[in-house]
């Protein structure tokens, strides 16, 4: 293969960049109907007509002035790394605002190809876009696509290759009003003489200076010619230039659109009809709460039959293996270790799948942005943003992508607070602990108990945010400017893909880190304390205080004794730091779930733990140290060990305090013991 080119996919948020990326490269990156799904650049490869393409999916951005971290990623890639081709994915149903970015990309002088996406929706709205005319007017190739089905991708690839081998620089540039042009030329002359600016196209840079773009001004300040630049900028009113440049860009677009398509805006869409009900003054909040409750109900009730099946399967598997293997220690490893441990975790796969299915419906329909819209007022009370609400909802699935999602929050303090409180949102990994314990101790009220735990997590997150806002992270309210995308009917296909992707992660985790964890627990539970005279993996020491694990447990037990936790729980919590499912897995190992007649829940209910301790344990698991993966992402996204440790100590402190409260008040008044 001769050539290799770098192709960047850029565009406004939520226009289908990732859908097109997936169609080109065959990847399965996350797609959703709300602005801000992609927050970091993703690479993929494709060979087409003997040309090797390195395709880069970028976060969405409305203009080349970046405000939030995800937009900075996109802008920096286009400006600093200079991809060979930039494909701007454009939402055909929203041309006017989308083409605003086009004008800037053209000024930047990149080799541009426009993918006119959502062409199916354009058609169904009865709008006709004259591509040929658009192409002629912009002097940029335009290709129609449907990202979600992959229609038009071939044509797009052909065009990319054709465009990349074309050496000419073209693409229309727009003229601004006379006085702006005069200033721009003055600045261009200065910039072209200074090698410091050689990396940037001078026309684009001058216009950005005139617009008063902070970032560009900062760059200019580092140069030797800055006094001259300042001289030009000083005797004009930057505010009016900023507004007029934006205004004239939009003016040019409108002029073109009048010739290219028959726009019929101000048309009440189906989406607006839905919103009349969903964000209605009186119905909005009840609907929001009912949807949350419904999602929760489905996650649990639909899962039960499947869980029973998995349970029966593992019970059977445990019996068979134990009876087949005659070597004592091996049978113990497989029966009491692996099957009991991993089996206790795998039972919850149906819950996890349903949870992610429900989340994907929320994302794909476009409701998640409405949730942010409805809840913004509540969030502003605690000094945050409606946009902070989206990561919190995502956190119900998994905290790791939720923390990544905070990149769309413009204000850095808002973002930091959101990162620090997201771990209190109860993720899918904590679910097994609740289902197990609530199921064992609260029977028919299990649902209420679990729902209360979720509510407690939200409450702790919100109150903590308020507390941090009032103390260590004071700051002004950041502006709230958010697009509300049109509703779309979520497809079953995308729901199932999403569910399957997360299901795979769960299975991999069960077969990887959880397996390792439970084997570790089993090993430590089988090794006798030196000098005790016990035998490796023998019945008299396994899982007792004469095992090494027991010794470790006894050592840390005093730390959690005031919460009513014994050494087994202490050990399970210690290993649960790796991944919270391991709490369940190690309990399975420690209470001998696999080989016993009864499953873990049965053993616990039969008296191995008191309901009160179970309740305290659930509260503790909700709030204490998040898993390794989460700690890692907190460190990466805050860029600070100080804040990461703060989160860990703050959360664990709270967990201890609340579990203490539960146990002590409960046992004083004789409840649940």
């Amino acid at each position: 293969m001769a050539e290799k080119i770098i192709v960047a996919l850029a565009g406004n948020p939520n226009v289908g960049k990732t859908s097109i990326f997936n169609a080109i490269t065959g990847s399965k990156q996350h797609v959703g109907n709300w602005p801000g799904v992609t927050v970091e650049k993703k690479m993929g490869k494709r060979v087409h007509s003997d040309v090797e393409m390195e395709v880069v999916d970028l976060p969405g951005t409305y203009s080349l002035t970046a405000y939030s971290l995800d937009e900075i990623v996109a802008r920096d890639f286009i400006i600093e790394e200079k991809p060979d081709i930039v494909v701007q994915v454009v939402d055909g149903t929203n041309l006017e605002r989308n083409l605003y970015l086009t004008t800037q990309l053209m000024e930047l002088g990149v080799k541009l190809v426009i993918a006119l996406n959502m062409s199916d929706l354009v058609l169904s709205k009865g709008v006709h876009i004259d591509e040929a005319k658009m192409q002629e007017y912009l002097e940029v190739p335009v290709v129609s696509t449907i990202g979600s089905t992959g229609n038009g991708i071939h044509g797009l690839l052909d065009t990319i290759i054709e465009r990349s081998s074309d050496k000419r620089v073209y693409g229309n540039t727009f003229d601004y009003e006379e006085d702006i042009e005069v200033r721009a030329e003055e600045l261009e002359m200065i910039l072209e003489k200074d090698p410091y600016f050689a990396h940037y196209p001078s026309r684009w840079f001058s216009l950005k200076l005139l617009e008063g773009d902070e970032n560009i001004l900062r760059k200019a300040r580092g140069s030797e010619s800055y006094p001259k630049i300042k001289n030009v900028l000083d005797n004009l009113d930057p505010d009016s230039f900023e507004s007029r440049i934006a205004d004239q860009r939009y003016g040019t677009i409108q002029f073109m659109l009048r010739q290219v398509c028959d726009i019929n805006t101000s048309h009440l869409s189906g989406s607006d009809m839905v919103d009349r009900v969903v964000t209605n003054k009186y119905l909005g909040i009840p609907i929001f709460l009912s949807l949350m409750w419904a999602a929760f109900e489905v996650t649990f009730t639909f899962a039960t039959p499947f869980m029973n099946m998995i349970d029966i399967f593992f019970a059977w598997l445990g019996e068979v293996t134990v009876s087949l293997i005659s070597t004592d220690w091996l049978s113990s490893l497989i029966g009491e270790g692996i099957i009991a441990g991993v089996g206790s975790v795998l039972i919850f796969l149906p819950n996890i799948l349903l949870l992610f299915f429900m989340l994907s419906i929320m994302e794909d329909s476009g409701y998640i942005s409405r949730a942010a819209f409805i809840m913004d007022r509540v969030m502003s009370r605690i000094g945050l943003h409606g946009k902070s609400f989206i990561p919190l909802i995502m956190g119900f699935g998994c905290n790791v992508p939720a923390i990544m999602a905070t990149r769309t929050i413009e204000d850095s303090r808002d973002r930091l607070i959101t990162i620090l409180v997201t771990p209190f949102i109860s993720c899918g990994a904590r679910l097994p602990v609740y289902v197990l314990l609530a199921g064992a101790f609260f029977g028919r009220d299990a649902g209420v108990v679990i729902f209360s735990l979720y509510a407690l997590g939200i409450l702790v997150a919100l109150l903590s945010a308020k507390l941090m806002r009032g103390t260590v992270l004071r700051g002004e309210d950041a502006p709230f400017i958010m697009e509300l995308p049109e509703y779309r009917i979520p497809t079953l296909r995308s729901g199932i893909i999403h569910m399957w992707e997360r299901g795979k992660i769960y299975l991999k985790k069960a077969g990887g880190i959880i397996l390792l964890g439970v084997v570790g627990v089993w090993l430590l539970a089988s090794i006798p304390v030196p000098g005790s005279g016990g035998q490796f993996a023998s019945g008299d020491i396994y899982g007792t205080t004469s095992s090494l694990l027991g010794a470790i447990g006894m050592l840390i037990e005093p730390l959690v004794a005031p919460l009513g936790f014994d050494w087994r729980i202490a050990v399970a919590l210690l290993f649960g730091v790796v991944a919270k499912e391991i709490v369940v897995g190690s309990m399975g190992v420690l209470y001998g779930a696999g080989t016993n007649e009864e499953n873990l829940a049965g053993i616990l209910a039969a008296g191995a733990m008191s309901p009160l301790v179970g309740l305290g344990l659930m509260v503790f698991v909700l709030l204490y140290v998040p898993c390794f993966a989460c700690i890692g992402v907190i460190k990466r996204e805050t860029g600070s060990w100080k804040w990461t440790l703060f989160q860990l100590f703050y959360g664990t402190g709270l967990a201890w305090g609340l579990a203490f409260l539960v146990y002590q008040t409960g046992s004083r008044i004789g409840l649940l013991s």
Partner: protein
Amino acid sequence: MDERRPDEMTLDLIEPEISVKVLKVIGQKSSRKRILDMGLTPGTRVEVIRRAPLGDPVEFKLKGYNLSLRKKEARTILVEAPEQVPE
């Protein structure tokens, strides 16, 4: 502000289902540029769609898409006062 003319208003004061023309974006540098980038340039028609259930933020329609702003941001957008519709 004293210099405001009687036929000017800020966008936060406009009632739902009324559409008005933008005159100017005042307010702080950072949010002003973003508001302009989103298409609220002078001359643009904006329709107020509805307020959120708790009164804030507000949903608008402009250039064929929907945008939500808090009242605080809407207050920085000067618009032409709508013509008085007789009751």
